[in-house]
């Protein structure tokens, strides 16, 4: 049995909106119906508001000066003690590796838009150029390595900065796919789509590649095409897509992530489903919400038990007057196929 003390312990959590929906509902309902707790709740809210009057204080600039002064000798010393070379973005390396990529996977079919034949790099005219982009030279294949997925550890350690990721489709001979990228040299990893190391690598690529550019859009297209024919895709792939759905700043990429998730129902995890619910709740783009609600509706139809937060979100969406009508209709449709458990 819940008593007032237990409910009051929840009040600060209510203020920070961090109670789970069931407890939130319980606490609100309790507050609404308990005259003592109503008064308590308003006093809590008032206290919480008063606390807001303590302003953020700017850090005096001298603190940073003192900090930087203190670490400069330490920095020199630390650098001398280590042989580790951090992964950095290097222009020369990138160009070199790009050329290598052309050579090394020249016989593979690239995904749409990636051509094999060398193309003219635009040479800037001298007078107009502020930063000159080098023309593509050709480097030896010795700069590149081809590794079978089985030979690499599924644990990708040190979070290397990978660049220039390209994909090759499954070979009709052995169903092997390929992922090429630059780290300190150019690497192509080949293996079956179901190999754990390949899955981990793809997950890493999806979650880490070129944060600033929408090249993940191509990666998702390729993942979708590749895994369309794989009976049971590894749940890690859907989790990676869920992270893209949660974090990518590009709406077009999020739409694709949600759409691709819809086609991978069997591999969904709780985290994946949560990402869809989050997207349905909060994504500003109507198409992302539409893809998310379609995916949830499909899940509900398949008889998967949806947790209370999902049901709650669908319920709210169905009745939300300013939501896109199609999203509302799909939310209602999803609810109609839910069997409470």
């Amino acid at each position: 049995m819940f008593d007032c003390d237990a409910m009051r312990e929840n009040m600060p959590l209510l203020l920070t909106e961090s109670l789970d929906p069931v407890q939130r509902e319980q606490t609100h309902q309790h507050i609404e119906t308990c005259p003592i707790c109503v008064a308590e709740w308003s006093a809590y809210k008032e206290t919480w508001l008063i606390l807001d009057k303590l302003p953020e204080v700017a850090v005096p600039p001298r603190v940073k000066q003192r900090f930087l002064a203190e670490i400069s000798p330490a920095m020199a010393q630390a650098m001398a003690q280590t042989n580790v070379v951090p992964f950095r973005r290097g222009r020369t390396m990138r160009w070199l590796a790009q050329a290598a990529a052309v050579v090394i996977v020249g016989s593979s079919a690239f995904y749409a838009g990636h051509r094999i034949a060398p193309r003219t790099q635009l040479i800037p005219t001298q007078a107009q150029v502020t930063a000159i982009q080098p023309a593509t030279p050709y480097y030896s294949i010795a700069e590149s390595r081809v590794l079978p997925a089985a030979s690499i550890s599924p644990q990708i350690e040190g979070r290397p900065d990978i660049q220039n990721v390209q994909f090759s489709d499954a070979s009709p001979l052995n169903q092997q796919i390929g992922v090429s990228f630059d780290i300190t040299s150019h690497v192509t990893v080949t293996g079956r789509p179901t190999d754990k190391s390949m899955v981990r690598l793809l997950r890493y690529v999806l979650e880490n590649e070129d944060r600033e550019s929408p090249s993940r859009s191509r990666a998702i297209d390729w993942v979708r095409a590749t895994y369309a024919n794989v009976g049971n895709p590894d749940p890690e792939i859907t989790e990676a897509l869920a992270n893209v759905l949660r974090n990518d700043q590009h709406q077009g990429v999020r739409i694709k992530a949600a759409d691709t998730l819809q086609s991978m129902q069997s591999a969904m995890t709780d985290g994946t489903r949560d990402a869809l619910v989050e997207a349905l709740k909060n994504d500003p783009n109507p198409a992302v919400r539409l893809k998310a609600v379609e995916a949830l509706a499909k899940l509900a139809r398949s008889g998967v038990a949806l947790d209370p937060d999902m049901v709650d979100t669908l319920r709210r969406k169905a009745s939300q007057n300013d939501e896109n009508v199609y999203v509302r209709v799909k939310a209602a449709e999803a609810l109609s196929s839910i069997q409470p458990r």
Partner: protein
Amino acid sequence: MRPILRISLAAVALLSATQLLGASFATSTRVVREFPIDPAGSVWIDNPFGSVDVIGGEGHMVSVTVDRVITAPDATSMKAASDNIGLSFEGDTKVRLMRTLLPPGRNARWTVAVNYVVRIPRSVNVKIGSKLAEHIRVAHVNGSVTVNGFSGTLIMEGVNGASAVNMVNGRIIYDYAQQPVSKAQVQAVNADIDIYLPPASNVSWVANTLNGDILTTFNVRLPRFSGTIFHGLIGKGGPTINTETMMGRVLVLAKGSNPNQAQSMRQNSANHQPVPSDVMLQPKQIIQLPYFIGDFTSVASIADVTVGEVRGNARIETGAGEVELGAVFGQCNVTSLGGPLNLGDIMGALFAHTGAGDIIVRAARMGGQVTTDGGLIRVIVAGGPMTLRSGGGDIIVRQFSAAMDAETTSGDITLTGDPHQRTLKVTARTLQGNIILNVSPRFGADIDATILTTDPEVNELTTDFKGLTVRREQVGNKTRIHATGKINGGGERVELYAEEGDIQISSQNITPIKLATPKR
């Protein structure tokens, strides 16, 4: 006063002979209790699975009869279920709470239904929580009634106090014994709502539905819609009855009247000519036709429209739904507030818009305008000048033979020119994404291509054509890569603009797509 406690246990284990393959046990347990309650007190019942009957009467006692029925495939599951499903009676004379306690993380091997019959003094307030109920019935209660449920039939019979009902699926029936004196707030998602009122009632009626109809046998005064919400007065007007169900229908009947004579408050009459502004007031339509001769028009709040062939012009307006047209011989005008559009061979001018969703067009022979506030646009053949806009999503055109203007706020644009055209006007803009323009090796154009990027080492401009000059400059914290020049001696203007992406102008030997001549 100590509550009178009468417990009679009738535990019966039955082996169902009718279920030879899936033999199961069922036990039924009955608990009966009685408690005193204040006339203005409250009874709260929380029963996730099973029916609830609350019946108002005289006296000052709450009497409860609970039947717990457990079904399990074997004795072990049965014991586990019996041990873990509890009943709880708490509270005092102000509030009586009765609850079914279920273990968290339920074992799917057994099922339970707990049925409550609760008799209360009619002045008491009632609150019911439920997930799945065969029925919930509240009868002859003058106190306030709150029901929060998911699935089942809710019957409110002779409830005179204020009521608030929230259901998702099932059906909601209000049967007023006398004219309403308190307000009722009825909210549902998929459930139908039926309200039975004495003929002389005075009520202010508010109704809202996306999908269903709003029907009544009353002569409603001052009817009006604001958006999808209907307002009207029954009799002189009085307490508000608010009936809201997204996908179900609302029916308000005068007792003794014939439900078949109920009038729709939406624009449902045979003579009604739909106008675009009231699309959300039109009833739902599901249309599936192999062909339609003449001009085809459909205006509906929610419509799933599939027509194989329209031998005339097509005009479809819908609040939400999926639209699929195989071929349209004339002009095609499709506007949806949300939902995917799948359009085939459109021989006249095309105008297609959706508030959210993908748009796929097999052929827009005369060109036209295709826009989505979010979603992918794919056009296989654009025979005439086209304008394509997406609020987020890729744009892909497999072959365009006339001017092309494509823009997306986020997504890639891939355009392939008709190899038979020596030059074509192109405008393509993406605010987050790549642009790929594929044209034949002899394609001539005046190119103006710009990339604006925070990462000039990643985003690049590549082309198979000679004759372009490129300049890079810093604009704030971004780099602008700008290529201009004539290819193959020049031609129409090709203007490409990509932020945070690549631009690729590629020369390819393209196999043209040929459209079959339509049979008329």
